[in-house]
């Protein structure tokens, strides 16, 4: 297993002192992602999907439970993980630094590792279907779909074994969504990375996921193979979700 969440709970406290209330964003969540596999995580807004992604990325420390990446707990220093885990995030508008050229953005994960990008940037851009000339442009000159392609190129450049896609296509037009999802499948076939694909859109998840986990109110209510899930969901909430599709 590349990623293993065992009985993870994350609680936030909110409100003024003495009237603090505790909110469990995740309650006893156990999830795992195998090498090369795509786990689709679905659920409504506020169900704890984003918190789960933050925990999976090591950005949020769980209140209780264990998280293992590649068989080991997260290292103290983030740098020790550099390049092995990447993410493609929600908002195409803010996924790229507006003050950096596309080429610089794509090369950044390599720069962090102290490696020279060399010819890798044009290569990475071609892999996601963009001309190498894009490297000299600024993000505001690109469309939303192009920006998400750039984000994917940036995530892939270090050949990570695990990538989190947090609502990576939700903000895009349907036709662009399909293009990006196809690209994703092609790239996964080529590089074999494992993925956690988070979305509220069951249709998009169906397209890419091998297994599906459904979250509701901070808990995982069902985990199943994609085929099984879409043909015969067990949990009533899953059925409800599928009916609305």
């Amino acid at each position: 297993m590349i990623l293993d969440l065992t009985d993870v709970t994350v609680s936030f406290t909110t409100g003024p002192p003495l009237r603090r209330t505790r909110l469990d964003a995740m309650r006893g969540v156990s999830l795992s992602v195998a090498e090369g596999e795509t786990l689709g995580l679905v659920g409504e807004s506020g169900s704890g999907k984003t918190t789960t992604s933050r925990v999976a990325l090591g950005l949020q420390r769980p209140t209780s439970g264990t998280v293992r990446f590649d068989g080991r707990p997260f290292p103290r220093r983030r740098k020790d993980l550099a390049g092995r885990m990447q993410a493609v995030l929600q908002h195409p508008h803010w996924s790229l630094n507006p003050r950096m050229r596309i080429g610089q953005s794509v090369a950044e994960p390599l720069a962090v590792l102290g490696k020279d990008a060399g010819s890798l940037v044009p290569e990475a851009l071609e892999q996601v279907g963009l001309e190498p000339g894009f490297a000299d442009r600024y993000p505001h000159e690109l469309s939303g779909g192009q920006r998400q392609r750039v984000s994917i190129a940036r995530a892939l450049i270090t050949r990570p074994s695990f990538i989190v896609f947090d609502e990576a296509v939700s903000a895009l037009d349907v036709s662009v969504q399909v293009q990006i999802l196809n690209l994703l499948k092609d790239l996964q076939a080529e590089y074999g990375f494992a993925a956690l694909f988070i979305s509220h859109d069951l249709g998009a998840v169906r397209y890419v996921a091998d297994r599906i986990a459904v979250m509701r109110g901070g808990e995982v209510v069902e985990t199943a193979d994609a085929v099984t899930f879409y043909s015969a969901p067990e949990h009533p909430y899953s059925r409800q979700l599928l009916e609305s599709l």
Partner: protein
Amino acid sequence: MNRTTRVKGTARAKRTASVKGTAGGRRARRLDPLSLTGLGCLLLLVLVALGSLVHAGGDPDAIVGPRLQPPGPGWWLGTDNLGRSMLPRVMEGVGTTLLLSSAAVLVTAALSAGFGILAGYRGGYLNELVMRVVELLYSFPAIVLAILVAAVAGPGQLAAVASIVLVTIPLMIRLVRAAAVAVAERDYVTAAAISGAGLPRILGRHILPNVAGTIAVQGTYALSVGISVEGGLSFLGFGVQPPQASLGVLIRQGGTYMMAAPWLIIGPGVVLVLAILSINVLGDGLRDRFEPRETRALI
């Protein structure tokens, strides 16, 4: 500047950016004519100040004629109570005031960038500490703070610079921090952190360039505040000391003879107003150019 003008400016800026679509699209936005006028005025004042270095208007310390003469040939802005020509004194005064204020604003900008960005990105105890100190400074009226500094450091140029820094830094830190908080939540910062980017890279490559507009805009406002603080402090006798001229010193000296020789305060007064106005107008223009929609809501 009123709201509709700003909105117009933004719409126009957007159009330019999308039509041109070049690498410099962000830079293609021009300042509006009013701000350009402000910039022109400011440059003119700087030129005048530089002119005083070569005594373009005459020797500021030389006695050229009778005391308290109204403007006339040989002393185009009149003469002061010692018979010195006001023209070179105002020129020297502009230079002193601009130099002290800009030095102070540079210090303010550097400190605010450092503390504001760090507090905004890291949050936690550092944020609390910085913000409490800022609130403490904020709670003092500007001139009281300036007098306090002068009392501790002794009157003079150093006191003037330190006062301007202390008066302008609270607002600047708060705004830079607010901008940094907004930038820190953006996906590219998160993505960089996930890639393993260290603090220096995140702050220097991602956050600083994206709050630089705020710093530039606030810097111009701080400059105009700095000019008025220097004026006030020197007027009270805690800032620049005569015979060196600054706008505040000149207004203070002229005030004594206001009824008999109003030109003594009209010259430096008009220049002071001109400096502050042109900087504020320039600041408005910069603000329209740098933060068309991003940070405006925060200010």
